[in-house]
């Protein structure tokens, strides 16, 4: 659902232009159906969407159910993610909120945010983790040395949420989604496939989220023999914890997008004003990148079942 601005033609209208006009009409109708890569519309008013397009009435504590980008440059972010990932957007009339989708599937939302207090112009991705009881989880956050940034409150259509800073300073949202969490499904391209907490102390972080969310933690060994700490609940692995290897970088949650080709995506990221934060050598299957405003996220290529 988007509105296309059709500029006035300099050419006189005449019978010979009818096919052109009909073609324009056809293109317009196609645009309404959601063609990836189309220029974003900045004039649509739309409600905040639920995390699941259809009510599931099933909640999956521990599942990462949503991702929000808070950015001081929403229009720039829309342009960046449209160009790099072919995401499509609907944007609020005030141009302070947008929701992104790829091939009809919701990806997340963008919110305009100016942090004048800190004078920062960096964007930031925030994940939302499903919890059974937001208020109880928030209380546990405080007991475990974390901080409540936004006290539990209800967001129409989205559900009850709280924004927290964990004991190490990483930000995330805890959400009890209205209508239920999304159904389990294999990750799809240009959508979120995983989330990682970069932590100074993975063991303590696992204990923190174990108490707040109910996660069980398990160190797994992948097919190459590498060890990795996984958080899971309800029989499902939901996120990973990585020991932060860099000095001067604070602990953070980082959502990870599934891409078909990391190298090609890195080129696109740079071509559109983003930057490569980290990428392994050779033919990387994983990289950390930043968008045009410094919001960091990961990309990973993987054959998904």
């Amino acid at each position: 659902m988007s509105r296309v601005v059709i500029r006035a033609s300099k050419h006189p209208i005449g019978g010979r232009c009818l096919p052109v006009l009909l073609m324009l009409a056809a293109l317009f109708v196609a645009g309404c159906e959601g063609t990836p890569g189309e220029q974003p519309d900045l004039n649509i008013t739309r409600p905040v969407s639920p995390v699941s397009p259809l009510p599931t009435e099933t909640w999956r504590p521990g599942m990462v159910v949503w991702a929000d980008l808070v950015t001081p440059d929403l229009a720039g972010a829309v342009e960046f993610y449209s160009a790099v990932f072919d995401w499509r957007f609907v944007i609020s009339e005030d141009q302070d909120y947008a929701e992104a989708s790829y091939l009809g599937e919701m990806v997340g939302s963008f919110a305009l945010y100016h942090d004048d207090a800190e004078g920062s112009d960096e964007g930031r991705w925030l994940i939302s983790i499903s919890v059974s009881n937001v208020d109880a989880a928030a209380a546990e956050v405080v007991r475990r040395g974390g901080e409540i940034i936004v006290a539990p409150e209800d967001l129409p259509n989205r559900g009850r949420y709280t924004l927290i800073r964990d004991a190490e300073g990483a930000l995330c949202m805890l959400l009890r989604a209205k209508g239920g969490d999304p159904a389990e499904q294999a990750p799809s391209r240009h959508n979120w496939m995983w989330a990682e907490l970069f932590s100074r102390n993975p063991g303590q972080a696992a204990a923190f989220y174990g108490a707040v969310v109910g996660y069980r933690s398990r160190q797994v060994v992948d097919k190459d023999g590498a060890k990795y700490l996984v958080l899971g609940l309800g029989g499902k692995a939901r996120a990973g914890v990585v020991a932060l290897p860099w000095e001067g970088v604070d602990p953070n949650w980082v959502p990870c997008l599934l891409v078909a080709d990391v190298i090609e995506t890195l080129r696109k990221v740079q071509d559109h004003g983003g930057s490569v934060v980290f990428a392994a050598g050779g033919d990387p299957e994983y990289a950390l990148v930043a968008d045009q405003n410094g919001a960091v996220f990961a990309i990973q290529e993987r054959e998904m079942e």
Partner: protein
Amino acid sequence: MTVRTTVAWLTLLTLLLLLCSSCESGGNYRNANYRFGGGVSFGGTYGGYAWRYRPGYPVYPGRPPDIDLPDIDEPIAVPLPSMGMPDMGGGDFGDFD
């Protein structure tokens, strides 16, 4: 321009306007309640150097020449941790019940 042509154009323009109006649906709720901070400062940097690359993993030893990466100041003798969703080679992650 004949009267017939004019009528045809007006009909098409009306059709276009109808299409426009049908594509503008979406309700009139505005995200006034959608806020993250409410005056509470939570944004800002990710740390002293944010996520800007700091020294110094041997990243990208074989990187394509057109990928622009920051200079590496010095290597760090810390093994690189595994990052990204683990590939369990077809197996699952184990029991999280």
